[in-house]
C-alpha cells in the first residue's frame, strides 16, 4: 500500500489529504475518517447476501497503516462508524481498538450510528452527538450542522468524481470535495457507493487512486 499525501492550507492550518481515504491534521495529531460502515458486510450476510468479510480486513489494515505512518494520537470518525446492528464485524473492530490502546477514538454520530451511546463508550469510543469544534474547525457528519462562517469538515455524501476517457469510457473515483468553507471526506470503507453529484458550490475535487492523488 502506498500512501500519497497532499497538504492544503485552510483556516491558518495545514490539513493533509491522503489517497487512502483519510485526512491527517498534523497540528492536532488527529486522523479524520468518515463512513467506515463497519458491520455492513455482516449485515448483508445476515440478510442472505454473500459479501466477503475480507472487505473489512482490508479497511482495517488500511486504517492501521495510516495510524502507523502519521504518529496519530486521535482517530476522529465523523459519522457512520457502524452500518447497522451489533454483529461479528464489530467484534473484529473491538479487537482493533484494543490493539491500538494508546489511541483515542472519537465519533461524531452519523445517521447510521443508531446504537446507544453507552455501547460506543463500552468499546472505548467517545461520542459527540452532532459536532465537535477543535481550534476553529468544526467536525460534523452531515453538513446541516455546519455554521456558515466556520470551516467545516464532514462526511456522509461519499463524494466521487467521474473522469471521462476517449469514446464512451469513463471511470469513477472517490474524492475529497473542498471549498472555501467546507471539506467533505470520501467514505473510508471500500464497500460504499460513490455520489458524483456535487453538494458544495464552487468546490475543488481531489480524486485519488491506489498510486496517486490529483486535483480535478
Amino acid at each position, binding site marked *: 500500500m502506498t500512501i500519497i499525501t497532499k497538504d492544503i492550507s485552510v483556516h491558518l492550518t495545514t490539513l493533509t489529504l491522503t489517497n487512502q481515504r483519510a485526512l491527517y491534521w498534523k497540528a492536532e495529531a488527529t486522523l479524520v475518517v468518515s463512513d467506515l460502515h463497519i458491520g455492513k458486510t455482516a*449485515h448483508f450476510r445476515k440478510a*442472505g447476501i*454473500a*459479501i*466477503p468479510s475480507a472487505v473489512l480486513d482490508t479497511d482495517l489494515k488500511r486504517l492501521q497503516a495510516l495510524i502507523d505512518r502519521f504518529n496519530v494520537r486521535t482517530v476522529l470518525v465523523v459519522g457512520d462508524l457502524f452500518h447497522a446492528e451489533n454483529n461479528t464485524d464489530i467484534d473484529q473492530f473491538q479487537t482493533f481498538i484494543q490493539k491500538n490502546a494508546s489511541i483515542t477514538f472519537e465519533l461524531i454520530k452519523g445517521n447510521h450510528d443508531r446504537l446507544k451511546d453507552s455501547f460506543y463508550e463500552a468499546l472505548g469510543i467517545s461520542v459527540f452527538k452532532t459536532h465537535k469544534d477543535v481550534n476553529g474547525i468544526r467536525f460534523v457528519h452531515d453538513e446541516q450542522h455546519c455554521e456558515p462562517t466556520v470551516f467545516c469538515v464532514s462526511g456522509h455524501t461519499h463524494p466521487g468524481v467521474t473522469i471521462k476517457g476517449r*469514446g464512451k469510457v469513463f471511470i469513477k473515483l472517490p474524492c475529497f470535495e473542498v471549498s472555501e468553507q467546507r471539506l467533505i471526506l470520501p467514505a473510508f470503507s*471500500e464497500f460504499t457507493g460513490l455520489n458524483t453529484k456535487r453538494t458544495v458550490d464552487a468546490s475543488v475535487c481531489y480524486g485519488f487512486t491506489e498510486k496517486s492523488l490529483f486535483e480535478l
Partner: protein
Amino acid sequence: MKNVQDSQGYQIIADWMHEKGQKPFDFQLQTWNQYHNGYSGMVVAPTGFGKTFSVFLAVVIDYLNQPEAYKKGMKLLWVSPLRSLAKDLAKAMIIAVEEIGLDWEVEVRNGDTPQKDRRRQERLMPDVLLTTPETLHILFSQKNNSRFFKTLNCIAIDEWHELLGSKRGVLTELAVSRLLSLSPKMLIYGITATIGNLDEAQRVLIPYEHIKTKRIVAKEKKKIEIVSVLPDEIEVLPWAGHMGVKMAAKIIPIIYENNTTLIFTNTRNQSEIWYQQILKIEPDLAGQIAIHHGSIDAELRNWIEDAISDGLLRAVVCTSSLDLGVDFKPVDCVIQIGSPKGIARFMQRAGRSGHSPYETSKIYFVPTHSLELIEAAALKQAVKDKRIEAREPMVLTFDVLIQYMVSLAVGEGFNEKELFAAVQKVHAFHYMTEEDWHWALHFITEGGNTLKSYEEYHKVIIDDDGLYKVKSRRIAMLHRMNIGAIVSDAMLKVKFFSGGYIGMVEEYFISKLKPNDHFILAGRVLEIVTIKDMTVLVKRSKRKSAVTPSWLGGRLPLSSYLSQYLREKLSESLHPKTTEKELKFLHPLISQQEKHSHIPEKDEFLIELIETKDGHHVFMYPFEGRLVHEVMAALIAYRLSLIKPLTFTIAMNDYGFELLSDQSIPIDEHTIKTILSKENLMEHVIGSINASEMASRKFRDIAVISGLVVQSQPGNRKNNKSLQSSSGLIFRVLEDYEPQNLLLRQAYTEVFNQQLEEVRLKEAFERISKSKLILKFAKSFSPLSFPIKVDSLRQSLTSEDLDARIRRIRDEVMKQTQI
C-alpha cells in the same frame, strides 16, 4: 393409433363448433389427436388461427372422454409471457367452458391478483390456471405448494418463442422440471410462432427422453403485404432521423384510410418524438391518437389497450410493448418506422393487423433515412424466402439456478441429490458439472467457496431431515419479493403533484434535470416540481416542446439474417429488378456511391479512406449491426495502433463504422490483410476492450436475479435502505476477494456471447477473409459513409449546431462532386 374423431368428447366439441358456424383447422385436429394418444409436443401456428384452442380443447376433449382420469384441482396450467395475454385468454376459455357446459373454473393468477382470490385459489386451485413463469416460481416458494400441482394433466407454454432465448425461458424450463417431478404423467405442450430453430425450441422445452413428442405445424399461412412509403425526393447523402418530419406528413393519409393503425417505433424516445410530430402536423387527431410504451404507467396502458379493442382510437404510437399480447380486432394497419432490425420482429408486428384467419396483414415501412429503403427490399425478400431468425436458448445461467434453489428452499425445502439429478436434465444445465453444483450449494448455505465460513450467513440451512431450507422469515420475504428474471433499470415513478401516475423515467435521465425543468412523457409536456422517495412529482406545462427522456438499452441489434439480406440487396442495387421499386428509387444514391467509391458485390468487402479537414477517416462496411461494429471498430483501432501509435474517434451504425484520426492511417494494400485477419481474433478483441467494465454492467441483472442486490420498487419508500448497494460495487468486491465466483464468470460469458457476439464476430471475419478487399480513396463522404459521420457528430453536439453542421458538410460534398 386411436383416432380422436371416434371419441365422444370430440363429437361434443365438433357439435359446439358447428353450432357457431366453425370448423376445426387441420392443425387443431392434429393436436387433439396427438393429445388423445398421449403425446406431448409443440404447436407451430401463426397468430389468429386459434392456437389457444388447439391445446385447450385437446385437454377438454380428453376430459370429456375420460373424466375419471382427472382429479379435483388444477388440471391444465397455462403459462404465458404476458399478464394481459392471460386475461384475454381466460375470457375466451370461460366462454368456451360455459357454452360447452363444463363445470370448470378458469382463473388467472399473477402479481395483480387480489389477496382474497389468492387465498381462495390456495384452498382449491381452479381447473385451469393461467399464469406467468414468475408467478409460478413464487408459488414454488410457498409452504406446502406441491399439493397445488399433483393433480396436473397438462402444462401449456404459450408464446414459447418469446420466452426461449431469455432467462425467463430458463425459469420456464426449471418450472417444467419441477412440475414433472410432482405429476410425472403430465403432458407438455409448447405453442410457438415460426422461428428458425424449431427443433431446438422443442428440445429445450421437453428434453426428456422418456416423453413421446410430436410437432404439429399449421399449414395455414398469414399473408403479409409490405408497402414502402417513399419520400418525395431522394437524399443522395442520407442521414438518420432527418427524414422524420417529412415522413410524418406521409403517414397521416394512411392513418385516415384505416380504422386503427399501430405505429411501431424502435425506442421509447422515438415514440414520444413521433407522437409529438404527428400531432403537430395534424392537430385534428388529438384525442384519437395515443402513445404506448413500457415506461408508461400500467393503468394508462391498460386503458389504451381497451380503447384500441373498442375501436376508439385511430392510431397508437408504440414500441415493442405492443409486439405481443391481446389481439386487437379493429387494428387493420401497421406502420413500421425505421428498421425493425430483425425479420421475425417485422413479421410479428405485421401480424398485429388483419387478425382474423386468411385476412392479409398490411404493413407500411417508413424509412428514417433513404438508405433504409435497402432494408425494405431485404425484408421483402426475407419474408418471401421465409427465413426467420433463431432464438438461441440461454445456458448455464447460474443466477437463475440460485434463485430457483432458494425458492424451493423457501417453499418446501429440497433434497440436494434429487434436485441435482433433476436440474441436470434441464436443457440449460446439461453441461453443469458436479463441481459447479457444489459451488451453488455452498453459495446459498455459506456464502461462497471461501475458506472462511460466515457464522452470520444462514440463508439456506440443512435441516434435521436433510432438506435444504430457508428458516429466516426475513430472508424468505426478501427472496419472494425478488423472484423473476426481468430486471428493470433504476426507475423513478412520475406522478402529478395533484395525484395520478403517468409513467417511469430512468434515474440516469432525471439526475440531469432540476426542479422547474421540463420533459416529455406519455406525450405530455411536464414540469418537475420536486423529487422524493423515488418519485418525480410534476405538473402540466404549457410549453410546446421539451427534452424527451432517453431510456438506456433502447437500441436493438440488427439480426444476422437481416444483415445477410442487406448485403445481398446492396450488391444487386446497381441493377435492380423492375419489381424492386425501393432499389429503383434509390438509384441516384447508388450511382453516386458507385461513381465516387464503390458498391460492394456479395463477395467483396469495401474499405473507404477519406481525407477531410477533420482528419483521416477509414470507413468499413460489414453490415453486422451496431453491437458487432462497436467491437470490430475497437479491434481494428487496436490492430492499427500496433503498427503505428494513433488516437482514434470511433463511430458506427448498423451498416458500418468509422475510425477518425488526426494523423494518416497506415492502411494500404499490404497492411489491410493483417488488419482484417481472422488470426488471433479473440486475443486482440480482449486487448482492445475493457472486458471487466463490460462484465460489470452485465453483472447488474445477474446480481438482482441471484439475490445479491435488493431491488427497491419505484414509488415505494426505500425500504431495506440499509441493504442498498449497487451491483457495480458488489462486482468489484467479488473480483477482488472471490474471483472464482461462478456468477462473476457468468457475467464474462454473457459479455462474450451477447455483447461481443463471439460467434457472429468470428463468422464475420471468416467471411471478410474470403472476400475480395476493395480499397477506395475519396476526397469527400460517400452516401454510405455520410450517415455514420452524422451519427458521430450527434454524440458530441447539441441538436441546434448539429443541423447547421450537417448542412455545411453536405453542401461541401455537393460542391465537390457537382451534382
